[in-house]
């Protein structure tokens, strides 16, 4: 963990309510699946965001405007500063897979972009399944197609396979030896009950983001663990979903 003042380089609106915030180059190292916590002006608690991209020292975060904190972020402009805790969490273990499958649900899939790039740098083109309610939710689809071999599933069939992620997993029958999943709790639970041969990145409301408050603890086969510090990435087999 570092405490840094980041400078906004770009804050691009990519759909009605989804933005990508890019920061000026900093001395950081990120593993895919790690996150940062931003202190938005006027709020007490920091907001956690998974690393969407990290390229030549420039960090990018993808976020949706869902409340007052993210609404405030959406107004930020190039050159503005923000207090951040960086390099948080454990990140994905990319050594587990020779033939990785990346499974993402909706906007929660954002961290898979940097994960796919990480595999690409290792010379592995990852397979990816992106699930969403409807086509228009897949705002970053074209970006993802540049770094992975992407299949799509939508609940309403407006793009790719019609059905949920698990149905799509059965349908596409991917040739993979380990998966990495990111998305809503409901989707992750379904994926884990289909197969535990993978890693799952969990989301939770957090207070501190660095393991002090126990605000984000989940139950695992090895007792309670903190999403922020022991995670956010866990083996699928160790998570006990409620």
């Amino acid at each position: 963990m570092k405490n840094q003042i980041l400078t906004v380089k770009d804050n691009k609106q990519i759909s009605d309510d989804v933005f990508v915030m890019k920061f000026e180059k900093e001395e950081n190292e990120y593993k895919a699946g790690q996150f940062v916590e931003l202190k938005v002006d006027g709020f007490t608690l920091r907001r956690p965001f998974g690393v969407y991209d990290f390229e030549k020292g420039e960090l990018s975060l993808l976020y949706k405007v869902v409340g007052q904190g993210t609404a405030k972020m959406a107004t930020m402009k190039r050159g503005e500063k923000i207090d951040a805790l960086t390099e948080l969490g454990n990140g994905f273990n990319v050594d587990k897979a020779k033939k990785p499958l990346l499974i993402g649900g909706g906007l929660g899939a954002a961290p898979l972009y940097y994960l796919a790039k990480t595999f690409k740098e290792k010379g592995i083109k990852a397979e990816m399944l992106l699930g969403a309610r409807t086509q228009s939710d897949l705002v970053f689809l074209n970006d993802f197609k540049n770094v992975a071999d992407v299949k799509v599933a939508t609940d309403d069939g407006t793009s790719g396979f019609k059905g949920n992620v698990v149905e799509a997993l059965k349908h596409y029958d991917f040739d993979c030896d380990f998966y990495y999943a990111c998305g809503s709790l409901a989707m992750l639970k379904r994926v884990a009950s289909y197969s535990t041969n993978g890693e799952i990145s969990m989301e939770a409301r957090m207070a501190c983001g660095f393991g002090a408050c126990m605000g984000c603890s989940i139950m695992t086969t090895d007792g309670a663990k903190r999403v922020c510090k022991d995670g956010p990435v866990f083996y699928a087999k160790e998570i006990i979903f409620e």
Partner: protein
Amino acid sequence: MNNLKDFNLKVNLFGYELKNPVIPASGTFGFGYEFADVYDINCLGSISLKGTTLNERYGNPLPRVAECPVGMLNSIGLQNKGVDKVISEEIEKLKKVYDGKVIANVGGHSVDEYVEVVRRFNACDKVFAIELNISCPNVKGGGMAFGTNPSVAENLVKAVKAVSQKPIMVKLSPNVTSISEMAKAVEGAGADGISLINTLVGMRIDLATRKPILAVGSGGYSGRGVFPVALKMVNDVYKAVSVPVVGMGGITSAREAVEMMMAGATAVMVGTENLVNPYASQQIINDLPTVLDELNVKDINEIIGSVK
């Protein structure tokens, strides 16, 4: 910046000398070692450990934290590994990174549980005092009742004092009509000190879902917003009892720490601010000499309870 060495920041709590009066509050600092890679925690006066119960507890369902205007709500519910593992695992890890002694914070559902946990801490040399949490708003069928009824609190303190070989500091709830009455009750029962305030009961609602943000409905409110309430209650308790008072509630700066000490606190606890700014406790310690210098104070003990 003024030099720490030019000022006496040492205070004495139950015969134990703290190098300064700043103590991270229970529940906001884990078991201390979690902060060891943030800064050298040996600068701290002491540490109040995460609330500990007899058996392992996971706590309440998620979400169990929520944003407030200038503060936060929590309904953690005393997650901990149980007293035996706290002593054998958590405190062992802490020993490697912190030289001083610490305060064990004890929670419970029954008098028997409190007594047993306190008894098991007797053998733990790293602990110089027990903070008896009789005011946790987040534990069903226990915690809170002990903190709002003077005679229930009195009985608990007597039972705990009968087995404890360490000083007992009772942590009071602000959710009462008369904090002085509670303070006198626990002092009368033998408490060696009083810490306050625990969190105020609070709530937030998600407008879109019309559900409380916290899964259990409501929780404890802490942070900047509670400071004036805490200051008043610390002063009330300081005037009502003669045992030492440890003040907490919304302290975010050295100036506020000094203000709390003027109200009557022998030492102060920094809570929520550790979660907002991981360096908060260290920064407050570093800033104390500057504030004391402004006030022409060389020995911090001079200011304790000095409000006119």
